[in-house]
């Protein structure tokens, strides 16, 4: 595990935030990009101006970048390994004894 964007930040820059946009109901918030903002309110306004200029935005989340914890590409093979042999978590693992027509429904 490591923090993303763990870069040195010079003092004269505003804080770095990650922006997540939800485009409509029933859709998840998706990462749209990063934004600079002195404080949360300022960052939220900047996120709106940069990522939501064309409508199609239901809601915006922002979170300070150094609060995000993520897997790394190097670790990911072993980290996700425990799920790779659990085929019984997928529907195609199961064999049917019913007639085809009924099974497909």
């Amino acid at each position, binding site marked *: 595990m490591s923090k993303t964007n763990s870069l040195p930040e*010079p003092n004269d*820059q*505003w804080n770095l935030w990650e922006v997540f946009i939800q485009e409509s109901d029933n859709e998840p918030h998706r990462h*749209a990009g990063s934004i600079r903002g*002195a*404080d949360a309110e*300022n960052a939220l306004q900047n996120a709106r101006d*940069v990522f939501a*200029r064309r409508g199609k935005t239901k809601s915006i989340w922002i979170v300070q970048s150094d609060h995000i914890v993520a897997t790394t*590409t190097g670790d990911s093979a072993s980290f996700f390994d425990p799920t790779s042999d659990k085929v019984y978590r997928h529907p195609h693992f199961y064999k049917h004894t019913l007639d085809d027509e009924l099974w497909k429904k």
Partner: protein
Amino acid sequence: MSENIAAMEAEFNRRIAAGETIEPNDWMPEKYRSQLKRLISQHAHSEIIGMLPEGNWITRAPSLRRKLALLAKVQDEAGHGHYLYSSAETLGISREEMFDQLHSGKAKYSSIFNYPTLSWADMGMIGWLVDGAAIINQTTMAKCSYGPYSRALLRICKEENFHKKQGMEIIATLIASGDTGKAMVQESFTRFWWPTLMMFGPHDTNSPNSPDMMKWKIKLKGNDELRQRFIDMTVEQAQKWGLSIPDQQLAFNEATRSWEIGEIDWNEFTAVINGNGPCNQERMETRRSAHDNGKWVRDAAHAYEEKHRSKITTAA
């Protein structure tokens, strides 16, 4: 240690070859990192400087509709600059450092923005030709191997289409308006044709960074191939509008089904890239003063945030 690096480099090359994207925290060769920093920051600078030739016409747009469209377009360019600075920052270069490189003249930006915008037809020409060329470059680059750059480009490409269409509408309107309008378009087209072709960069044979960039899938097509794609598309559009192309040697090659152009004036290209184009000095001065004049806004936001934070701390 060096064996370790060789192993990491082999793994890196395997991932590139497999078409995987490289993310900020992944190991990458120093040269891959430095090439990307250079490329993405130059691209960001081009978006920011690219606001200036069009900003020149906002107060003189011929109607409210045109003015709104132009304002929205210039605002998009600022947004594009922002996406790109953010993706360059993930490589470990600060925004201040990139600004310093731009303001000191160390960093380059697209040569096209060092040409003046002398008439309203130039606003159409920038949308049609300059943004049209940029779309060809950027849609190709959007498949590049560095994740944050690729994602920024996808977002940019979606917005560029509006830019191109608003430019083409301006041109079509001027042409339909009669001889004066058409002459304005022709004059503008004649000035912008060659500088737009230069936007694709030197011939591949003279492009020193190309081989590494292609190997690492930072770049996916050569400059000449992309330029040719633009020429073939644009010559036909220009002909449909009845515009004459300022190139005596322009000829259609039946075998390749492609338009062949005369030689580009590379001396002009080199001069403009190295700071001696018609507007380099003015662009840099405008950019520097915009940055200096905006300092109090940045400082005020900082001060507000600090005051707010100290209040919360005191209360707790």
